[in-house]
């Protein structure tokens, strides 16, 4: 408990430094966002001045940042250049990305570990070779190729999945993009599980357990697999953050209005408050995921749990 509290307290300075860094970076982008919004037609200075003032763009970086932080403490995350409150936007967008990331994550967890165990238990067999070849292929092919191919073949030609959008809600609209997004992580999970399991199956305690006359299922399931999962859990924990942050391409292909799309647009438009809001939340997700991983170690390995106490 105290361990968890201490870890959470560390998040505060991370939060402050992240927001400031991101703000500075957006601030440093070239160009005048207001002019870019206005387009080719001449815009009276008066109008530009009003717009700049509204978003504090006429003030120095520190003052802009100050305005932003004051707003944050009042619970106001600012608004986009089109007048939409950032908090509202984040709510909608995070829901989409969270559903997508979770779908992808569950997919890579279940299928990845399943394939890894299959390959590990039959080392050198046909299944092992197939998994090895398959995962190499998935890692080698860029995600947008997988994405477009899946969309055209499974969505358009075979009609198994909706091609794009969120009309069908969860899970319908999220399965295909989830699998595409999770395919990369799945390959890693499968390989990690396999290698780790193969190693542990040769360990002394497994031989002892087998020698005691324990059934094979229990040996593998309870002893070997549980120990083999520690690196896998580490990977899955970090990867959850990656899935949230790295869905830009997948969200683009499948037209899912998540945070990846939003950050991409907002950087182009130089919408400081939006970028800061999204990235800060992402940092929080990473911190939480890491904490969860650390706590899970204890569950999987009693030695770690005792060392902490």
């Amino acid at each position, binding site marked *: 408990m105290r361990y968890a509290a201490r870890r959470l307290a560390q998040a505060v300075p991370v939060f402050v430094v992240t927001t400031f860094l991101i703000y500075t970076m957006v601030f440093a982008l070239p160009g005048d966002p207001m002019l870019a919004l206005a387009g080719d037609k001449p815009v009276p200075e008066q109008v530009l001045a009003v717009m700049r003032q509204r978003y504090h763009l006429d003030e120095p970086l520190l003052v802009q940042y100050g305005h932003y932080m004051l707003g944050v403490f009042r619970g106001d995350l600012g608004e986009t250049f089109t007048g939409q409150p950032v908090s509202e936007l984040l709510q909608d967008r995070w829901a989409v990305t969270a559903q997508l990331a979770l779908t992808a994550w569950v997919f890579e967890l279940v299928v990845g570990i399943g394939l890894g165990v299959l390959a590990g238990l039959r080392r050198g067999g046909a299944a092992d070779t197939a998994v090895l070849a398959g995962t190499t292929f998935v890692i080698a092919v860029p995600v947008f190729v997988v994405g477009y191919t899946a969309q055209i073949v499974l969505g358009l030609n075979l009609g198994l999945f909706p091609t794009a959008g969120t009309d069908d809600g969860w899970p319908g609209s999220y399965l295909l993009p989830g699998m595409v997004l999770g395919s990369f992580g799945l390959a890693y999970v499968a390989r990690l599980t396999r290698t780790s399991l193969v190693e542990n199956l040769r360990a002394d305690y497994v031989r002892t357990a087998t020698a005691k006359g324990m059934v094979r299922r229990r040996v593998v399931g309870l002893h070997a697999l549980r120990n083999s999962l520690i690196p896998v859990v580490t990977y899955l924990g970090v990867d959850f953050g990656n899935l949230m942050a790295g869905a830009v391409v997948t969200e683009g292909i499948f037209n899912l209005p998540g945070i990846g*799309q939003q950050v991409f647009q907002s950087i182009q438009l130089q919408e400081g408050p939006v970028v800061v809001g999204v990235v800060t939340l992402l940092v929080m997700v990473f911190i939480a995921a890491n904490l969860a991983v650390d706590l899970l170690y204890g569950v999987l390995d009693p030695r770690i749990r005792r060392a902490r106490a």
Partner: protein
Amino acid sequence: MQTAAPFPTLTRNTTERRSTVRVTRSRAAALAAAAVMLSGGCGGSSSGGAKGADADRFSVALTEPDHLTPGNTSSDYSITVLDTLFETPVSIDAASGKPVMRAAESVTSTDQKVWTIKIRQGGAFSNGEPVTAQSFADSWNATAYGPNGWTNNYYFANIEGYDKLNPEKGDPSTDKMSGLKVVDDHTLEVTLTAPFSQFPITLAYIAFAPMPKAAFADLKAYDQAPVGNGPFVLDGAWEHDRQIKVKRSPAYNGERRAKAGGVTFKIYAGRDTAYTDLRAGRVDLLTTIPPASTAEAQRLLGDRFLRTPDGTMDYLGFPTFDKRFANRDLRRAFSMAIDRKAIVDAVYDGAFKPMASLLAPLVPGYRENACGEACTYDPAKAKALFDQAGGFSGTLTLWFSNADPSYEQWMTAVANQLKQNLGISDIKLRKVPASDYLSSLRERKEDGPYRNNWVMDYPSPQDYLEYMWGAGNRMGWENKEFDDLIKQANSAPGLDASLPLYQKAEDVALAEMPMIPLWNWQNQVGFSGRISGVNVTPYSKNLYAISVKQG
């Protein structure tokens, strides 16, 4: 109006660019559902919403609009929605390019300076409020009022009293333009700062739509849920980045009565995905089929693929303030060294039209070969003229933005042709981030020819010539003869009388060639078998005329 990508990927705004489910459930549910999906439980989700109450509704692919207040948006996506919700005083007849009366009964003037607009009797907003001359005056004043900071502010700059609402310094002393006079409920008198024969055409633009009294109580809320006088009315809240639904307005009694029960605007962040959804039957109308998919779309859609004219033009501008580009023969040589047809075929699959005119073909007064020799591809003549003009030494930098990948493709082709035909060996491409492109040009940072793009506001030669070649133009080009001709044309006694004068002005600009015409955009429209009556014109998508096939 502004530079735009064909269907800008991942951007929300018109300028150079362009933005689904809630509540997470348990993992167990995810697994269960995954199992269901794998066993094939998800087929048949491909109807564009053709069941039950939605049977009389069709869907249109769209990019997320920036605003839905008529005075505060110039983006094509927003205008597509607003065109269903509002009715402007006039609209443009696609065949002739001439105004047709809509919310107005007549627009007349004896001196081209004081205009009388008679408002049609009996028109009403969807909240029941009658549409009067005051509704127009209120809307126009709000748009012109500087402190509101609305995008279309500039469209009112030629109305008397505009400057008082946009003073150089300090706050405006009034929020009403003196040039707008509400004579009675159905008569609006507009006084311009100078005679302007094209005024009736400009009234087709969305910024001239009326707004009801209720709007001004809370303009921010109005932007999210606009109430208009058009054939459709909002149906539920604007679901950002997902969809906007409109339904037939019972209050509307004009001539654009909606044939379908409703329209769902489905928001896409990229045109490629929208096109895939059109193929899958998940969206009924797409007005921006990517040029790369032209051949395939023609094959797959057959007569459900249409190519419609567009007013948008691409140009290559010269920084004439830079003395290396001050010689007009050099500029003309550049123009003759560019093989427009080859570039359009290679980059846009022939979907765009090579141009030998500064105006788009649909603009009244357009002449197919206004440019003559100077826009005809002729490497030998180009080289001779180039050498005669003294040639070019040093690095030639070509400027464009990264808003769309095709810009780099065609600019590379231009660079190769200049290299090959004129012998300019040192050519650099300068790709600028979209957000920085226009401000760079505004600050005159460009040290070489640059991509210039124009999206038509209204079909008048004035909309092209005066804004791009007139006083304070981007090229730094100054020509008194041109300016005088534009002034004369603007004060000509009518639309027809103005055209020869604009053409003369165009001749001057072409002879001097501070900016080379390249090609004219075309829209590629595709639609599903569910709908009929598709009539997309450069001025309107005419969604009211589309009906949904029953059965």
